[in-house]
């Protein structure tokens, strides 16, 4: 009962904040709404017995990634023109996009509710997971079954660091006007 109540409250917060992200004019408000969405999603992960994912969601998403976003928004110092931005090159775009979005909701909803997911059940039931510890199981899998993807992820992060520095550093070549 408590779980259902928690789910309903959290999902309402998530949907409201996600709509806030999309329809806010000011990007800094969008960022704050997005942080709230991610923290509420972490609560849902706890309900799903994925405590490690919940912790990482708060630390990496709501912490690190959103700090970069807020930092860039502050750094760019957008003027009023950019924030309003209602020149409307495509006047029908907004209603058409919302109609398409509603269609997407219906389609995904039909697929998700009608499909019967039958697969081989794994060994990690919530009882087993609570006994061993979710974080310990994640660590064990990362360094046994998924050790190669784990190493490739480190290479990806390295490439991202190099790419970000190369892209954002001061341009030496002057752009010809």
């Amino acid at each position, binding site marked *: *009962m408590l*779980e*259902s109540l928690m*789910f309903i409250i959290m*999902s309402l917060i*998530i*949907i409201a904040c*996600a709509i806030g*992200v*999309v329809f*806010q004019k000011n*990007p800094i408000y*969008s*960022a704050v709404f*997005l942080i709230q969405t991610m923290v509420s*999603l972490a609560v849902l992960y706890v309900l*799903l017995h*994925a405590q490690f*994912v919940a912790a*990482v969601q708060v630390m990496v998403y709501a912490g690190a*990634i959103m700090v*970069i*976003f807020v930092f*860039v*928004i502050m*750094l*760019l110092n957008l003027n009023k023109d*950019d924030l309003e*931005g209602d*020149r409307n090159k495509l006047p029908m775009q*907004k209603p058409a*996009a*919302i109609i*398409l*979005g509603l269609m*997407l*909701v219906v389609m*995904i909803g039909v697929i*998700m*509710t009608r499909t019967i*997911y039958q697969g*081989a*059940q*794994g060994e*990690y039931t*919530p009882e087993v997971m609570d006994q061993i510890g979710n974080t310990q199981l*994640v660590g064990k899998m*990362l360094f046994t079954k*998924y050790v190669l*993807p784990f190493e490739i*992820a480190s290479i*990806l*992060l390295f*490439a*991202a660091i190099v*790419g*970000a*520095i190369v892209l*954002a550093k001061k*341009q030496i070549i002057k752009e010809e006007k």
Partner: protein
Amino acid sequence: MVVPLTWYLVLSGILFSIGAVGVLINRNALVIFMSIELMLNAVNLAFVTFSRQQNSMDGQIFVFFIMTVAAAEAVVGLAIIIALFRNKATVNVDDINIMKW
């Protein structure tokens, strides 16, 4: 009473659709990036739900990797936005069309 896992999947679908609409209607490159993060979060929720449904850990490991990719994508994307802003002094995607034929 336990929440049916289908509800989580439907919530994930709604979240993904809101993100997709955000990509379509926004003109600010930063908000478009945030909408992409919303869609990635929706997929993460679906992964964790399936992982719980199958009593398996693999979905949660996938979420871990998706977060890695999302972090890399956000960093490189924001670097591109900074570089563009330095050249054109705008983040409106209608004005950034130098690669359009």
